[in-house]
Every structure is written in C-alpha cells, then in structure tokens.
C-alpha cells in the first residue's frame, strides 16, 4: 500500500539545525539564515525512507510527514 506524504514543519520549534537538509537535499534546501525551504508536493516513493530519517533526526521534533492537504 502506498501513501502520498509531504513534509510539514512547526516553524515555532525549528531552530535551523540543518540536519533535515543534509539528509534530504533532493527536497530541502536552506535559506540565507539556515532555515529549511521544502520542495512543495508529495515525496516520491524512493525518497520516503530518507524523509523519515530527516523527520527522526530533527532535534526539536519540529518536522513531520502528513497527507497532502491535511492540516
């Protein structure tokens, strides 16, 4: 069973640790202050394991995966 997922971040928690961008550079780049900018849309299936690792690596638990359109 495959499920469409995208990244969402709690901006009040994120403090720009940059780990997510290192683990998923295909979908996450950093702005000039070190905060992540996400490629919009669903994560392709082959990148999902990396996305899960990025979520798990966030020291502030700011990152999560959600279904597109979900709050």
């Amino acid at each position, binding site marked *: 069973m495959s499920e469409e997922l995208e990244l969402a971040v709690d901006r009040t928690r994120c403090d720009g640790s940059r780990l997510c961008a290192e683990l998923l550079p295909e979908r996450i780049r950093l702005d000039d*202050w070190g905060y992540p900018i996400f490629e919009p849309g669903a994560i392709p299936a082959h990148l999902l394991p990396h996305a899960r690792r990025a979520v798990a690596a966030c020291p502030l638990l700011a990152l999560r995966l959600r279904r597109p359109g979900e709050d």
Partner: protein
Amino acid sequence: MTNRLLDGPPLDFGAEPYAQHRRRLGPLPSAAGLLEALESSGLRGRGGAGFPVAAKWLSIAERAGGPAVVIANGSEGEPLSHKDRLLMSTRPHLVLDGALLAAAALRADRVFIVVAEDLARAPAVMAAALAERPEAEQEALRLVVAPARYVAGESSAIVNLVESGTAVPTYVPPRPHVKGVGRAPTLVQNVESLAQVALLARRPASFPALLATLHAAGSGPVVRELEPSTLLGQALEGVGGSLSQTRAVLLGGYFGTWIDGSEAWELPLDPRALRELGHSFGCGVVAALPVGACGVCETSRVLRYLAEESSAQCGPCFYGLRALAGACERVSANQAEPGELQRLQRWAQEVRGRGACRHPDGASGFLLSALRVFGSDFAGHRTHGRGGLG
C-alpha cells in the same frame, strides 16, 4: 438598501447607550435563519483576510459535541486603521449584539470581547456597555484587554491570550475553529464583521456598508462608512484628497498593496470587485502617499516596523523581515550592495508561507507591491523626497 453601522446619534456624542440602541433597532433578534442570511449577503470578514463569514460559521455549526466559544476581535493592531476603535467607542452594542447572535447560532456558552489597550476610549466603553446588558447575557460575556502589538490580533494569538494571557501566535493546526479556547471550537471574528451581523439579523435583505479609514495626502485619518460602489478616488476626495497630490495609494494597510495613484483613483471600493482585480480591501485602510514623497523611504519604514513586531518565534520571519528591512534601508541610504534588488525580490518570495502565522506573508506582499509601483525609486534612489503616510 444599505445597512449602516454608524446610523444613530452623532458620533461625537460618544457611545450609544443600551436603552437608545434598543429603541432604535429593537431587541436582540433571534438567530434563526441567520446563517442563511449571512450566506446570501456574501458578508466577508473585515479584519483583513476577507474570509466569507458564513463559511467559517458553517464549519463550527456543523460539528458534533459540546459548546463553542466566540471571540470578538477588537485588537486593531494595524497602525493606519481607526475604524474598529471608532465602532467600539460609538456603537458598542452592535458589536455585543453580533457576538451574542454568533453565540446563539453556534451554540457557544462563552463570549470574549478582546480590545487592545491603546484604542483610546474603546476598552472603557466596551466595559461599560457590557455592564448595561441583561444579567443573563452578562454571564456569558467577558472583556479581555490585549496588548498593543501588531501580531496580538492574529487569531491564534487571540486564542492564546484568552487561554493563557500571552498574546503571541501559536503553531496551528489545530486551527481555532476546530480546537481553540479550552479545546472548544472557537469563532474569532473582527468587531466590524460582528456589528454587520447584528444589522443583517434585523434586515437580512439589505447590503452591508463598509467602514474605511481614509488618509488623504498630508492629512490625518478619517473613518467613513461607504456604499460598496464608491470609487476610491471619490472617497479620498471626500476627505480633502486629490489625484494631483497623490503619488500612490496603500490599500489594506501594512499587509496591503501599493497601487499607482491614477490606477487607484478609479478602483471601486467593493471587496468583491477588488478581489477580481487582484487587490484586497484588507482591513479598510486607504492611505495616500503625497506626490514628491519617496516610495523607498516609506516602504523601509513600514518594513522595519513589521520586522520589529515579529513575535520572534519563527526563523524565516524573525531573520527574514529584519533582512528585508535592512536591505530597503541600504537602498534608501544609497548604500545598496551589488545585486541588492534581486536579492530583495528573492527574499520576499522566500519568506512567504514560512511562519506559524501569516505575518511574513503580509510583509512580503507589501514589499513586492512596492517593488512594482516604486520600481524606479528602488533602481535609482537618490533623494528622499518629502512627506509620507498620515
């Protein structure tokens, strides 16, 4: 027919007393059929975002479960806006009627009236008005005084203030209309929107008028109640403005957009028509920038203000708005770095949608409109010009 919020005793008499309000408009009507009336009126929120009122109410009305909460948003954090304080100081019972009608329609058992502390007589008038209402109504009503900060009026910040006394935005989801005060579904509605509801419940076939804060070039704010067909130029001429003295118009306040003077003059002040033309009436601010004033300097000043009003919780908002203000100030001081304008464009795009609330989005839209309308000032900034927004 138009429903006019400011009908009644002359405005310089101050607050209309409850007895007079009842004589003039009758008692609080029933909320039966109100949702349908709101839907067919097409009433949209007057706090800035212009969201349809009926749609927000429906999402709360259709829930299962316990009582909801209603919050009247009288924060008026926008420095160029004066309409909410005028409304609260002169027609407080229209606001209370609207909030109580919302509570009846949405099965809410608590109603909070949030008023910013700096709004002249508004907090004291609202407190006195609450005390005039029947005891049964008073039991549900509470007045909450909010700090005078720009982001304190954002809906999650209002919920946070009511719950914990801290008026800063919180991460959503859940959104207030799903889970707000005490996890109850919570309606946050601007005070003018609620006053419009109070009139629509009595005269559902009439059109809502619009409260606007008008700043003609070189003169202070005047609040006027406008028919939705008024042209922007007519409105400013009515308070002493003229196209020949107007370089550009800021429509919608600090979260709004700059429009070139001659284009602005012909625009209808009708929220729906404006939206179709790609503009927004926002919170009803129409502010003229005088001919001879400098677009870069004015834009820098507003951006610095918005940067300082960030609640500093989200990196892209805190650092991004400071960087944007700094870059504008360098242009204005003729100290632009190479590529400054391209970088300003890129930063303005990049901060959008990257805060817990829409503060950075508002600042970004404002700046992008400045870059369009004052493109030549930004490209070859030399002198500072004279005059600014009222």
